[in-house]
């Protein structure tokens, strides 16, 4: 295997490392970006087969060497915004070898495992493989610009130019190409027709009026009426077809964003507010659509209008035509400056807009909490502030958006005045063959000519606005979806054997949530996972559910790596009952049958019966047709829980997971739910997370998780005998239950 390093290692350090470790023994390096005193600089750990060389300027000679044999532990100590690679010696003393920011933390973790494994088992190539896999995961940077990629070998968004961005958006325009082409054709015709009256003006001024030619005047009037009639009919048809095309574009965009949003990993939602996602579907698609329409229609029409008028003007009088072109360089200059100034303003505006959306999506669904805490005034105040900030920002942007086009229009008008002045003088003196008719029609053409000039000058405003929105849209469309490499599907349900092998996981680099998880669950096992809040119990479940895929190590189900199993098949084999089950605004029947496609009515009724839900549902006036409010309004917590158990029953999964399913209900409801659970789990692999240990009485295996590690695992009786953490938890709960009972009996007396 080649030498691996997260950052380039200087030649001097490399040479020194080769001298210390031996030429063939330099295997990999962890290059830090901090010195031991916390200032930015370079440090490095270069690993060999039996020792590591640590380089930092705080060491005498610039380095120190640690033999693997001599250490008791190797560990990455995560601090706030930085980390230390530390080793512990048998005398209990710790030594910090190097310091680095979180950028190198993952590789350092793998290096620590490597170091301890080499000490215990001696060097082997397999051990370097552990580091190699982490290194590959880290190596997800663009070879061209060096920026981080969403995943190894993913295309670099930075290196795909703006043209690439537009080509991505073109996907939504192409289905409407015939409509758009037809509209362009109609535009060309109507624009051509609109230029004719200007030409007729010169005939009127130079011929019809001086010669008192009434017959010609009537002919011209009839011609003009017909011309305008045709022009406006065609414009009406064009507008209708354009509307159809733009609806097609925006629908395509919205559908794709929503569909992509369904497959985005949980990490995306951990970092993005729902408000900003909704904003992208609703508002940004609209902005992009408007710009696309502008470019695909108006820009083309205006461009050809501009070219057409230039040709006509030069054919009438080239000197006057040159005069008309004078303001163009100034207009282009102003327009470019405007673009630079206005782009950041739109970004700020987007932030303000997004803040309002986020506030709305937070507070409206949470209206009960707001009312319960009488917090209406504070929420209104906050919303007012956001609105005021938006207004302030919009007005600032509006100021630029008003000043620049006005400036442009002013310079354009100056061009017209120039034609008036110079052309007027030539017409009066009869110079260069400029007649009154030519001057009048020329002025008219010049005014029409400045329309497209104005259009292109002001295009930058909507361009920047559209770019800001397109960035946000592509942020979703280009985001890495949940990995679904596997194509394994089996007609038979999963047997339910689950194995965790050396699994490590962290949400971000600042804290490891799970470390070194090794666990085997046999088919049909009922496993209780216990531990204090924040110990990593739910994260363990999240990994089984494949909500997060970027863990180290492997998870197997029925002997197959879960990453190799088709995602939707895999999830369809798992019944997941959460502490706060989510109900949709739909009938009770559809809420039970959620995600099951076509199911027979009796299957739903049967599922509800098993879940102890049928009795309360049948007592409701509309029974199974009862429409639940948003998030299940109309049902109590226990009722929602039983509906969600009925969902799991209907799914008939091979594996069942209960995450604190009875934590939020009273004892009587718990009894009902517990009864439902016991009927459901027969013969299935079941994992139950529970704070109330009494709910785990059916479990044949208990896993105790503490600070992200499994500290105890085995049958409950055995753990009780061991008198470890589980024993303590049981004791504490028994005592508190006893106290509660005593208290209750006192109150009764």
């Amino acid at each position: 295997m080649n030498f691996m390093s997260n950052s380039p290692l200087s030649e001097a350090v490399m040479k020194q490392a080769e001298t210390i470790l031996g030429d063939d023994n330099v295997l990999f390096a962890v290059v830090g970006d901090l010195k031991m005193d916390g200032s930015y600089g370079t440090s490095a750990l270069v690993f060999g087969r039996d020792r590591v060389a640590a380089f930092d300027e705080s060491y005498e000679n610039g380095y120190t060497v640690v033999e693997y044999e001599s250490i008791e532990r190797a560990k990455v100590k995560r601090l706030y915004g930085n980390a230390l690679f530390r080793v512990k010696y048998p005398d209990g003393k710790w030594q910090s070898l190097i310091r680095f920011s979180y950028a190198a933390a993952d590789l350092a973790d793998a290096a620590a495992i490597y170091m301890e494994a080499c000490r215990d088992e001696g060097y082997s190539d397999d051990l370097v493989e552990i580091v190699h896999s982490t290194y590959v995961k880290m190596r997800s940077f663009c070879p061209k610009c060096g920026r981080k990629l969403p995943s190894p070998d993913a295309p670099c968004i930075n290196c795909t130019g703006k043209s690439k961005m537009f080509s991505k958006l073109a996907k939504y325009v192409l289905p409407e190409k015939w409509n758009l082409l037809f509209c362009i054709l109609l535009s060309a015709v109507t624009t051509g027709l609109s230029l004719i009256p200007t030409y007729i003006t010169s005939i009127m001024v130079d011929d019809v009026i001086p010669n008192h030619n009434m017959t010609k005047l009537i002919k011209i009037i009839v011609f003009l009426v017909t011309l305008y009639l045709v022009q406006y009919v065609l414009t009406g048809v064009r507008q209708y077809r354009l509307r159809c095309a733009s609806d097609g574009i925006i629908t395509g965009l919205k559908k794709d964003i929503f569909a992509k949003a369904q497959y985005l990993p949980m990490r995306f939602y951990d970092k993005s507010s729902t408000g900003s996602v909704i904003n992208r579907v609703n508002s940004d698609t609209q902005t992009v659509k408007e710009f696309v329409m502008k470019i695909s229609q108006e820009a083309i029409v205006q461009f050809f209008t501009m070219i057409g008028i230039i040709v006509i003007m030069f054919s009438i009088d080239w000197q006057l035509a040159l005069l008309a072109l004078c303001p163009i360089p100034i207009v282009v200059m102003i327009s470019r400056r405007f673009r630079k100034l206005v782009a950041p303003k739109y970004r700020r505006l987007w932030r303000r807009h997004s803040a309002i959306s986020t506030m709305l999506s937070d507070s409206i669904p949470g209206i009960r909490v707001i009312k319960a805490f009488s917090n209406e005034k504070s929420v209104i105040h906050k919303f007012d502030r956001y609105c005021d900030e938006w207004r302030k920002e919009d007005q600032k942007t509006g100021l630029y958006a008003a000043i620049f086009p006005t400036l442009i229009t002013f310079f354009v008008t100056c061009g017209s005045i120039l034609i008036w002045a110079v052309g007027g003088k030539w017409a009066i003196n009869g110079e260069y063959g400029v007649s009154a008719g030519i001057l009048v029609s020329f002025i008219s053409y010049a005014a029409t000519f400045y329309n497209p000039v104005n259009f292109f000058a002001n295009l930058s405003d909507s361009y920047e606005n559209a770019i800001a929105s397109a960035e946000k849209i592509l942020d979703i469309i280009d985001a890495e979806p949940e990995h679904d490499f596997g194509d394994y599907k089996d007609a038979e349900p999963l047997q339910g054997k689950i194995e965790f092998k050396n699994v490590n996981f962290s949400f971000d680099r600042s804290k490891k949530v799970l470390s070194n998880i090794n666990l085997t669950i046999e088919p049909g096992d009922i496993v209780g996972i216990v531990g204090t809040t924040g110990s990593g119990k739910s994260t363990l479940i999240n990994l089984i559910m494949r909500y997060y895929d970027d863990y180290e190590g492997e998870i197997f189900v029925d002997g197959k790596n879960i990453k190799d199993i088709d995602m939707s098949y895999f999830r369809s084999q798992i019944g997941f009952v959460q502490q706060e089950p989510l109900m949709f605004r739909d009938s009770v029947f559809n809420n039970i049958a959620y995600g099951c496609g076509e199911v027979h009515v009796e299957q739903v009724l049967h599922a509800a019966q098993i879940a102890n839900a049928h009795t309360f549902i049948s007592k409701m006036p509309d029974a199974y047709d009862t429409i639940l409010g948003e998030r299940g309004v109309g049902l109590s917590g226990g009722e929602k829980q039983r509906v969600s158990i009925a969902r799991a029953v209907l799914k008939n999964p091979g594996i069942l997971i209960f995450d604190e399913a009875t934590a939020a209900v009273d004892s009587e409801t718990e009894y009902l739910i517990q009864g439902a659970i016991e009927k459901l789990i027969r013969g299935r692999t079941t994992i139950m997370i529970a704070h109330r240990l009494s709910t785990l009485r059916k479990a044949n295996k208990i896993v105790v998780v503490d600070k992200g590690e499994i500290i105890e695992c085995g049958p409950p009786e055995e753990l009780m005998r061991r008198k470890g953490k589980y024993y303590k938890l049981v004791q504490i709960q028994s005592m508190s239950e006893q106290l509660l009972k005593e208290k209750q009996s006192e109150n009764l007396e």
Partner: protein
Amino acid sequence: MILRYIDGPEVRFRQKDKIFVDMEFYHSDEVFHDMELRRMFPVSGKNKYIAVLDGEGNEQAMIRDVANLDAQSREAVESCLEEYYMMPKILRFIDMTDKFGIWMWTAETERGIVKFEIRNHITAVKPLFDHRVLIKDANDNRYEIPDYTKLDKKSLKMILPNL
């Protein structure tokens, strides 16, 4: 568990190995070795409410205000916190390139010049009410602008669009 608050004179801290301190209570002769310190308000109140944790991460005491400790203890606690919490203060921005929401910043901090990348400027740049700005880069490292209004004109131009 009831928090054991430390107001100042009853305790002495001594720094050990960068991020560890020994804590000694005068009147009870209790000594706690190799304790770690954590700010309860690392963003809004750096030297108030500092938790003192043992090796297991259990909280043993809470310092109400570092300013009330004796000079030697204060120095030890501050130095320890300084070592643990690394949130470089950005003095100026040298360069910024932005494409499609991915930003590469080069900034001068009090710890030297640093280059970092931001993936999502909406979530990574957090303006606070008192002109402070917190930045979290793609690797979850943190940076702080103590007062963005005091940045030079060029830096201000780079950061303002993100606030």
